[in-house]
């Protein structure tokens, strides 16, 4: 699959309280959560981002609380995927389990500037920067995780394998 969009760059240790503050956790409705996506990291983010845009984070993206509301808010806001140097482990499992595509590329996270357009080829394992044509490699995903994505998340994978 190809994900093409403009980059919204964030730093290291973006925690799930920044992605979706707890004051909004009295609902799990994706549309309501989407309105507050990234609010405590960038209050204007949801007003300026466009559907298909891509979040690029640093180390330990999604650390802190286990709230699945975080990847739900990102996905419902219209972000196509997240690239980071590394992901906190609960965010990592949540993203695969609920179907938010995420990719690890430390080199891209270092090199890319805010607002640049990139195209991610998930099957080819590359990220290309529009204009310059510079390419980066994505860390390979374990086969089981690829299967989860192909099946449309953990619950669909279980429904398929239990039959």
């Amino acid at each position: 699959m190809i994900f093409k969009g403009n980059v919204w760059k964030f730093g290291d240790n973006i925690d799930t309280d920044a992605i979706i503050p707890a004051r909004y956790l009295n609902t799990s409705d994706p549309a309501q959560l989407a309105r507050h996506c990234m609010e405590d990291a960038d209050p204007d983010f949801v007003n300026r981002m466009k559907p298909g845009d891509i979040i690029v984070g640093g180390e330990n993206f999604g650390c802190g609380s286990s709230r699945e509301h975080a990847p739900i808010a990102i996905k419902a806001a219209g972000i196509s995927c997240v690239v980071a140097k590394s992901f906190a482990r609960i965010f990592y499992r949540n993203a695969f389990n609920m179907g938010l595509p995420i990719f690890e590329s430390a080199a891209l996270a270092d090199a890319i500037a805010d607002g640049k357009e990139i195209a991610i080829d998930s099957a080819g394992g590359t990220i290309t920067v529009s204009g310059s044509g510079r390419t980066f490699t994505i860390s390979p995903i374990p086969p089981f995780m690829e299967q989860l994505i192909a099946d449309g998340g953990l619950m669909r994978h279980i429904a398929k394998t239990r039959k």
Partner: protein
Amino acid sequence: MGYTITEKILMAHTELKDIAPGQLINARVDIALGNDITAPIAIREFRAAGGKEVFDRDRVALVLDHFTPNKDINSAQQCKTVREFAFEHGITHFYEGGQVGVEHALLPEKGIVLPGDLVIGADSHTCTYGALGAFATGVGSTDLAAAMLTGELWFKVPQSIKFVIYGKLRKWVSGKDLILNIIGRIGVDGALYQAMEFTGETVAALPMADRLSMANMAIEAGAKNGIFPPDAVTGEYVSPRAGRPYTLYASDPDAVYARTIEIDAGALEPQVAFPHLPSNVRGVSEAGHVKIDQSLIGSCTNGRIEDLRIAAGILKNRKASPSVRLIVVPATPLIYRQAMHEGLLDIFMDANAVISPPSCGACLGGHLGILADGETSIATTNRNFVGRMGHPNSEVYLASPAVAAASAVLGRIASPEEL
């Protein structure tokens, strides 16, 4: 080649004869936990997958502790969703109202989680139960749905970091100070995807309450789990509470670790984590003059009776500074009752504290202790991220109950030595 305690527990929950770090496994789950924030999504996913029955109604725990007593209509709806699901499925371990406590204090107290268990919880601080010698890890709501349906879940076997801690702790230095110091050393991703195994003479002498505080914050170093080798202290805590058999595991002498970190804890002073990361740690003597508006004593990290006794010892015959709102949150109904019988509640009320019902509310900026623009709280909780306890321009400093109590009296971050 030997196995670590984490590897042994994971392997015992599969049919595998060997196991290695990095391996993806499917393992049986002993207890699956959810709360009023995370369980509603899990219930939605469970039903969407055609779930009719939970895998074992005695092995699911649903605890309405976050936005309770219900803080608003939406929160009440979320609790209603979980309550109806719990009654429909006859969930044995369902807690709300006057029976509810902060989940990670409640489950060990009631003997619901035991040594050798594999526990998953849709709450990041599920790692607390590692204090008992269990493998316990935080997961998401979809994971909880899968575990409630199948009784199993996928895991990546983690590497382990061995912490060898020695030296006699000074007065006022607790497990909370040890874990803050460790997070300060290795960083908020210093144990990312790894197990933190706590060993050494200092650990062996630590009471269970301190071990629970330490394992609780393993997630703040990015760890998958924190774990203590079960010993006599474990046995004393667990044996009167356990309603089912349990297994004590120990790491083999030739187990393999990603790294070993030795810590001399004898020289340590009480620690404070400055905003906005739990790793931003200094000794309390280096805190400088930090004026506070609120002091929060409670949470799954430090809301146990031992914590309240320490705070009451400092607050006795003293009052909170007029500029400080002191909030004390006994973590469970049993702790509340003990504090009442021991006269601790009188001490807190005489110090002008608010005594909250058991709830996670204040810690995560939900309710019962929200900070305004520009306000500062010292808290015995586990996170000090931007906006964690309220306004995005508020600040949280993390410390032990002793430091939080002394700070409440002096109106600034302070060591009990200063009183």
